[in-house]
């Protein structure tokens, strides 16, 4: 039976992979931003699950501090990226990044 920490580590890796796939595969900018956020949550989850030391013991505070700053920076990056996406849509008429192969 896998432990709590391992379970959440694996979940974090899976989330990261999903986010990476969606980031590469889908053309819409909003979806890419969602994918980046999901990737971020995956990484945070790996960090926090490494910090977890059982239900009775106190968790490692160092990764927690990293993740807290990470969350706030992630939301700021999201805000900037969304503004950029709106701007790209205003300038090119489309919020998608199309490639030649895509069409």
């Amino acid at each position, binding site marked *: 039976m896998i432990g709590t920490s*391992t379970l959440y*580590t*694996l979940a974090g*890796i*899976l989330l*990261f*992979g*999903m986010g*990476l*796939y969606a980031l*590469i*595969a*889908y*053309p*819409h900018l*909003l*979806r890419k931003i969602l994918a980046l956020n999901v990737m971020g949550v995956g990484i945070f989850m*790996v960090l926090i699950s490494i*910090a977890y*030391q059982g239900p009775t013991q*106190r*968790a*490692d*505070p*160092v990764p*927690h*501090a990293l993740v*807290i*700053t990470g*969350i*706030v*920076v992630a*939301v*700021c*990056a999201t*805000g*900037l990226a*969304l*503004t*950029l996406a*709106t*701007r790209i849509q205003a300038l090119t008429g489309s919020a*998608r990044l199309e490639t030649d*192969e895509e069409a």
Partner: protein
Amino acid sequence: MQTSDIDRALQTDDTRLTRPRLFVLALTTALIAALATAALTFPDNVGRLAPLALDSLPRSGVLNPVTAVLLNYRGYDTLLEVAVLLLAIVGVWAIAPTARVWFKTPDTPVLATFVRLLLPLMIVVAGYMLWLGADEPGGAFQGGAVLGGVGVLWVAAAVWLPRRGHPFWLRLLLGAGVAAFVIAAVGLLFLTGGLLQYPPEQAKTVILVIEGAAMFSIGATLAVLFIGGYPRREEEK
């Protein structure tokens, strides 16, 4: 162009599983498998910083280890992180000439009353988070996030309408976190000889002051990001 054509073209994002996507999916699956094996074979007894962080806690002036890590052990990092938030705002103002959202007056008394009651409550909770942060889970980032919620509510229900552009006090608020951090760092450099090395007796006070300024900065940053450019008065639809 037929209406159905336009609808199909404008409809949504296309997420069918095409061949290149299948290829990408295969690659990411391989990556996940590699990472999962790495995670499962990861040695259990790696060197941890936790004992060090918890043992030095009495000297840090606070009881919450996370706050100690953020403001004591990794003080520079947090300083630069608050500066990054400022850079995000500069970026937004550089690329977006007009706001994405506009101040919208509540058209029902229910919303107006709700906001009038909720806003002070949220500010109190933000302060509570900050105060709690020294000894229990909480702190500047959590309080700042709640203040960001205050800002969003403020914009969304038009509690107060500025003229075009951002008022001076908002810019002041945006810079407050970095300013307090830098002033504290330089001041402490002269007092204790170390950058962000707090004297043990006043440590808690200094940390709370820096955290307070950082909290207001974070809240203002999040609210300005929500506006996403220079605000306008009620825009035409």
